[in-house]
């Protein structure tokens, strides 16, 4: 049988033809593969090279130490302490993160809420980012975690830094606190530090206002990592810039005394240096522990703070707006001198009331004070005297002087969220209510009621300016890093020396002359005498019946309905150095605010922080108006 027949030839030809055709197809495939290699390696090679580097190299952000906050003598008011914490890396947690959390929960206390928060944070970050599970552990807890580490894949013990406020609630309204970022915080803030899980930023007070200075800038560690995020080696290390320290004008000793003296009252008090406006102490009570917010405040604690009728979260010094009451009277007196009304011969006669049209305005003293000069009006805090004086002056002249003494506008203190009281004008009422200013309005304003309001800080400024006659502003920050918190030398107020002297004399008589409204609360130690002005801010409107038969005694009322007690003062009388404003909410009974201010001013003068060398690092010599020792 022939081996090569026609059929075999034909199929050999077909096979050859088709094989060669397939060879062509295979060549085409190789051309495609080569073209693709060209695309990937030559055309886009650089881009892929970058991506491979990005894969390989991981920039780990390092949080620099946050700047510390000092008082004027170098006492640390806010610092950083070691924070023993436990981190979890999702990718390395081979048993799963939920199991890892459960295992950790057997070693240290871990609430369900905490676990939930960790799960949320893990979900928001890449799998190789270490996320804090628990912080501020005790050494025992931390050791327990370390001991069990071999059974805890993905768990990293870590010693970080955390904010610490050694004096707890004492300075909380000045310092504020730090807490974890909220989504709102991240908007418009490009600082890479915020990307670090668990990073804390300033939320209130100095911590917030100077947050960017305190933060410093992020350091970075360039590490080579594998696909699971495990660090193979460190390629480079760039230490960040530590946050800048901040030096306050506060004297912590005075601050402590003030805070303790205010105690549990719903109260606020400011002590200033009258020559510079520097705030020596500033407290609002009750306060709260800022460390709570750093560690993480529990819902119960938070509810406790928000529901307390003494409003611990409110910084009453600058967020509380009150009718100044009689503490406004020195302003009216000043305006009267400036207007040429209150000459040394100026007298007003008080018979207990003043009638204007068909409305009767009562003096606090039934039966009246008789005939009074300006100093007498202040000394006795005579309402009729100031009704009449205000009536003759008109509101606009009073407003002008009030503004010069620091009322009616924010003081510009270096703390966020300052509120301002208000001093009305005729034009304002017309514009605001479309109603003409009434003389009755002026009369109310004359005794610090009606439309007139002020914050305790503004009242402190009033006392400070009256005491020094200088146009100073309150200031709490002395230095940020190495930069002096610069300001102009204080100019004299555009008020007459005679007016200032007479108002001071009036305030002197309040405390130091028998019959003065605060004579019983005077400082009797020679050389430390204070001058002051009491005030009562009405919380409720008195009824017509009360005007006839006597006002219901505050002590007979609910706490919430009692009047606020206010007091402004400066000392020593002869050469004023310190000024003080103090308010006790619903605390007009027994004048606790005057007692507090007296004790505080006496303590301050005896300690005399202005006479002690400060610990400011440099440039102290350029402090305006301050001899350097």
């Amino acid at each position, binding site marked *: 049988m022939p*081996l090569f027949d026609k059929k075999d030839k034909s199929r050999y030809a077909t*096979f050859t033809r088709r094989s060669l055709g*397939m060879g062509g197809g295979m060549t085409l*495939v190789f051309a495609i593969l080569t073209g693709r290699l060209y695309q*990937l390696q030559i055309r886009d090679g650089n881009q892929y090279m970058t991506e*491979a580097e990005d894969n390989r190299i991981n920039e780990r952000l390092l949080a620099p130490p946050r700047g510390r906050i000092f008082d004027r003598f170098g006492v640390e008011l806010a610092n950083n302490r070691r924070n023993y914490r436990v981190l979890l890396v999702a990718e390395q947690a081979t048993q799963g993160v939920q199991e890892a959390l459960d295992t950790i929960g057997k070693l240290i206390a871990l609430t369900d809420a905490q676990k939930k928060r960790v799960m949320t944070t893990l979900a928001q970050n890449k799998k190789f980012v270490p996320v804090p599970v628990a912080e501020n552990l005790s050494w025992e807890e931390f050791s327990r975690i370390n001991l069990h580490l071999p059974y805890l894949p993905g768990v990293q013990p870590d010693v970080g830094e955390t904010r610490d406020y050694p004096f707890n609630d004492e300075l909380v309204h000045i310092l504020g606190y730090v807490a974890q970022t909220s989504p709102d915080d991240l908007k418009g803030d490009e600082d890479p530090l915020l990307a670090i899980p668990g990073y804390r930023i300033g939320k209130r007070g100095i911590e917030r206002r100077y947050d960017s200075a305190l933060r410093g800038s992020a350091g970075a560690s360039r590490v080579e990592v*594998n*696909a699971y995020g495990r660090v193979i080696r460190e390629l480079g290390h760039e230490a960040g810039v530590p946050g800048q320290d901040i030096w306050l004008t506060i004297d912590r000793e005075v601050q402590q005394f003030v805070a303790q003296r205010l105690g549990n009252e719903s109260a606020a008090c400011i002590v200033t240096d009258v020559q510079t406006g520097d705030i020596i102490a500033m407290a609002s009570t009750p306060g709260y522990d800022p460390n709570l917010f750093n560690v993480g405040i529990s819902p119960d604690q938070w509810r406790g703070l928000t529901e307390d009728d003494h409003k611990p979260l409110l910084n009453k010094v600058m967020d509380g707006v009150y009718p100044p009451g009689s503490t406004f009277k020195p302003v009216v007196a000043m305006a009267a001198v400036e207007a040429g009304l209150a000459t040394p011969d100026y007298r007003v006669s008080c018979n207990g009331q003043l009638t204007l049209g068909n409305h009767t305005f009562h003096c606090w003293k039934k039966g009246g004070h008789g005939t009074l000069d300006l100093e007498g009006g202040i000394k006795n805090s005579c309402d009729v005297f100031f009704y009449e004086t205000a009536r003759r002056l008109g509101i606009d002249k009073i407003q002008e002087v009030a503004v010069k003494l620091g009322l009616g506008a924010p003081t510009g203190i270096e703390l966020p969220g300052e509120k301002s009281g208000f001093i009305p004008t005729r034009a304002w009422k017309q514009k605001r209510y479309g109603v003409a200013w009434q003389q009755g309005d002026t009369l109310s304003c004359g005794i610090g009621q009606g439309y007139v309001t002020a914050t305790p800080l503004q009242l402190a400024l009033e006392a400070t300016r009256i005491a020094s006659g200088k146009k100073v502003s309150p200031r709490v920050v002395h230095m940020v890093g190495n930069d002096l918190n610069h300001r102009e030398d204080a100019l004299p107020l555009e008020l007459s020396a005679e007016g200032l002297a007479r108002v001071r004399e009036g305030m002197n008589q309040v405390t130091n002359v028998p019959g003065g409204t605060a004579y019983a609360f005077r400082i009797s130690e020679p050389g430390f005498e204070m001058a002051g002005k009491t005030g009562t801010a009405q919380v409720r409107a008195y009824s017509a019946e009360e005007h006839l038969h006597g006002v219901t005694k505050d002590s007979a009322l609910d706490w919430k309905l009692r009047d606020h007690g206010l007091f402004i003062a400066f000392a020593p009388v002869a050469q004023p150095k310190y000024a003080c404003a103090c308010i006790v909410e619903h605390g007009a009974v027994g004048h606790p605010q005057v007692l507090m201010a007296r004790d505080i001013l006496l303590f301050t003068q005896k300690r005399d922080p202005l006479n002690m060398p400060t610990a400011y690092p440099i440039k102290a010599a350029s402090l305006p108006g301050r001899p350097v020792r």
Partner: protein
Amino acid sequence: MISRPYAAAKRTLGIGEKLFDVNWGLVLLITLIAAGGIAMLYSVAGGHFHPWALSQLSKFLVGLLVMVVAATIDVRVWMSLAYPAYALAMVLLIAVDVAGHVGLGAQRWIMLGPLEIQPSELMKISLVLALARFLHGKSVEDVSKPLNLGIALAMIGLPAFFVVVEPNLGTTLIILADGCSLLFLAGLSWYWIAPALAAVATAVPLVWRFALHDYQKARVMTFLDPEADALGAGWNITQAKIAIGSGGLSGKGFLNGTQSRLNFLPEKQTDFIFTNFGEEFGFVGSVALLILFAVVIFYGLQIALGARSQFSRLLAMGITLNFFFYIMINGLMVMGLIPVVGIPMPLLSYGGTAMLTVMFGFGLLMSVHVHRQVEIPRHSGGII
């Protein structure tokens, strides 16, 4: 009509002659490529012979022996073993579905004593052998007869079915491609081919809808838009492209590939070994490797065209195409041109069964070359 003497064909070659006739150039090429693969396995292990390079070397040496032995065995012996081999592979393939243990989410392995073998790998070679034998006696007209075509298609379809249910899409595709290519080379009429192509085109959406596993669909979807899930299923493709692309013109240098060393590459020692090659040796090295592959294929084509019997021709071309389909699918896959299917790069990827079957295939190819003068009657069934 018979124009050449058959003495040479009829004479039985001595073993020395056979060894002399083995394509040592081809052996050298294969060794070169395999050496490159072993070097890559050394590299992806971070510069260590363990766990892959040394093991792969021993597998290659065994494969080399298998190849040379296979080359010296008469092609007619292979022809007579074609059907038994096919039957055996078929049994193993069914057994793997029944008794095989689960690896990588799919049943692909079976333990045969100490050996862990992949029946689907064996099936590729067995199918080529069996089809070549079946088509050996068929003229161009015979091939297109419905009965013959039906038998051939059944021979292809049966193993394809058992492989696809494992499930192993990549190998199924190669089995189908191998089988259809042989039918085509045997002279299947265009009257069959054209409607078949049309039918395949219409079947694709149906297969997508009803036949594919979720993980297979996910692979396709991921391929179409890898960046949509760059940290999940798109990871493989994205990282493979980064590895190859970052090699640039001349590569990062041997042992300097960061992608695989730092574990960014999945399956770096098996299916994605080529990406490491591309990363460390760049465009120049990768193209050189492709050229080596192309030369091997050219060798195979030449051997097929030089054989005197239809069985030898079909066998040689089947082996060559099988080798080519591996390279094509793996190459297109790792370069992100087709979805990820589990196909290794021949001679480079780590794996015993693949290495042995590829080397055995080359042995058959060389046997065809060594016995190129052997005539086999159309109605012969081999010499056993």
